[in-house]
C-alpha cells in the first residue's frame, strides 16, 4: 500500500475514534451561518446576497481552524520521521494528509452547502450549481494551500496566528473568485470565468505544493 493510502486510512481511523467529531464540520457551518445572520441586522432580508461569501468564509474558517494540527501531532510523536525514512515516498504521505483533510472538512461542507445556501435564500437551479461547482474546485484548494502553510509552520513554536496570516493572502484569490462566480450566477451572468481560474489554480497547486510541503517538513527535523 502506498504512503498515500496508508495516510488517508490512518487519518480517517483517528477521526473515527471519536464519532462525534465527524458531526463537527456541519455543526460548525450551521453555527457560522447563524452567527453571520445574527451579526447582521435582525431579520435582514438581504441575506441571500451574502450567502456565497458566508459559505466561502465558513469553508475557509473550517480549514484554518483544523490546519494547525495537520502535521503537528505526527511531528511531536516521531511518526513523521518514520515516514521520511520509510521506503515509500513521503510525498504520498503529504498528499494523503491533504486528501484526508478535505474528506473530513471540505466534503461535509460541500454536502451541506446546498441546503444552507437555500436556507439563506440563495436561488436554486443553475446559480446553485455554479456555487457548488466553485466549492468543489475551491475546498481542495483550501486543504492543499493551507496544508502547505501548515507544513511551513509546523516546527515553529508559536505558529498560532502565523499560519492564518500566511494562508489568508494565499487563499484570498480562491475565496474572491469562488464567491465571485456564485454572485455572477446569482445575477444571471456567466460564471465560467472564475471557475476556470479556480480549476487552473487547483491543477497548479496540486502539481507543486505537495512537493513544496514535503521539503518544508523535511527541514522541520532540525
Amino acid at each position: 500500500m502506498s504512503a498515500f493510502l496508508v495516510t488517508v486510512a490512518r487519518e480517517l481511523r483517528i477521526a473515527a475514534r471519536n464519532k462525534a467529531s465527524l458531526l463537527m464540520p456541519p455543526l460548525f457551518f450551521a453555527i457560522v451561518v447563524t452567527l453571520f445572520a445574527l451579526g447582521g441586522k435582525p431579520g435582514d432580508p438581504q441575506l441571500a446576497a451574502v450567502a456565497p461569501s458566508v459559505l466561502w468564509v465558513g469553508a475557509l474558517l473550517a480549514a484554518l481552524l483544523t490546519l494547525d494540527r495537520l502535521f503537528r501531532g505526527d511531528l511531536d510523536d516521531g511518526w513523521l520521521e518514520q515516514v521520511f525514512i520509510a521506503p515509500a515516498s513521503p510525498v504520498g504521505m503529504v498528499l494523503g494528509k491533504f486528501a484526508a483533510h478535505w474528506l473530513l472538512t471540505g466534503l461535509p461542507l460541500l454536502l451541506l452547502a446546498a441546503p444552507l445556501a437555500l436556507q439563506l435564500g440563495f436561488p436554486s437551479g443553475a446559480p446553485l450549481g455554479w456555487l457548488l461547482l466553485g466549492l468543489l474546485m475551491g475546498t481542495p484548494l483550501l486543504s492543499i494551500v493551507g496544508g502547505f502553510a501548515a507544513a511551513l509552520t509546523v516546527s515553529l513554536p508559536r505558529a498560532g496566528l502565523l499560519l492564518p496570516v500566511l494562508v489568508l493572502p494565499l487563499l484570498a484569490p480562491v475565496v474572491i473568485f469562488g464567491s465571485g462566480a456564485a454572485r455572477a450566477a446569482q445575477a444571471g451572468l456567466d460564471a465560467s470565468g472564475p471557475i476556470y481560474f479556480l480549476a487552473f489554480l487547483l491543477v497548479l497547486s496540486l502539481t507543486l505544493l505537495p512537493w513544496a510541503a514535503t521539503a518544508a517538513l523535511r527541514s522541520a527535523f532540525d
Partner: protein
Amino acid sequence: MWTWFHRLASPPSFYRFADRVAPWLAVAALLLLGYGLFAGLWIAPKDYQQGDAFRIIYVHVPAAALSLSLYTGMAIAGVVALIWRIKLAECAIVALAPIGASFTALALVTGMLWGKPMWGAYWVWDARLTSELVLLFLYLGVIGLDQAFLDRRAAARACALLAIVGAVNVPIVKYSVEWWNSLHQASTILKFGKPTITAEMAIPLYASLLGAYLLAGMAALRRMQNEVLLRERRAGWVRELTAV
C-alpha cells in the same frame, strides 16, 4: 428523608427504583399526551384568526417548554455533580442532553412549520428563534463533548461545566420576546396568573404539556439506567443482573 435520598443515590437502588417508576411514567405520559393531542387536534375549536394552523401549538409549546426545562435541569444536575460529586447527577447530565436536544429540535421544526403560514417564512433571524437555535447548539456541544471523552467521569465533569456555563442562554431564550421586539408571540399561556386563552383550548394544552414532562422524565430515567449500567459494568450487581 436524607437517608432515603442517600440510599436512592446509590446506583443499584436507583436502578431498581427507576425500573419500578418508569413504566408508570410511561403509562401516564401516554394517557395525557393521547388525550391532549387528540383533544387539541380534533376537538378544540378552530382559532378565529389562525384556523387549524394553530393546532400545532399542542406540540410546539410542550416541546419548547421542555427544551428550556431540560437544559435547566441539566445545569442543576451539573452543579450537584460538581459540588457533591454524586454519581447519579453525573449520569443525569449526559442522559438529559440528547432528550433536551430532541425537544429543542422538535420545537424548532414545529415553530418553522407554524412560521410559514403565520409569518410567511419558515425561518427569520429573530431573537427568540436564534437563541433557541443557540440552545440546540449548546445541547449538541454537550453531546459532542460527552462523546469525545473516553473516561465517563471526566466526560461528565466536562459536560457539567459546559452545561452550567451555557445556562446563561436559558433566560435569553425565555425573555427574548420581551427584551427585543420579536416576531414571536409573547408569553401568555405559560405565565402565572390568568392565561389569555379559552379553556377548551387550554386544557388539552396543559394535558399535553404535563404528558411531555412525564415522557421526558421516563426517557431520562431510562437513559440514566443505561449510563449507570455502562459505568458499573464491572460491578458485582451488574454482573448478577446481566447473568439472569
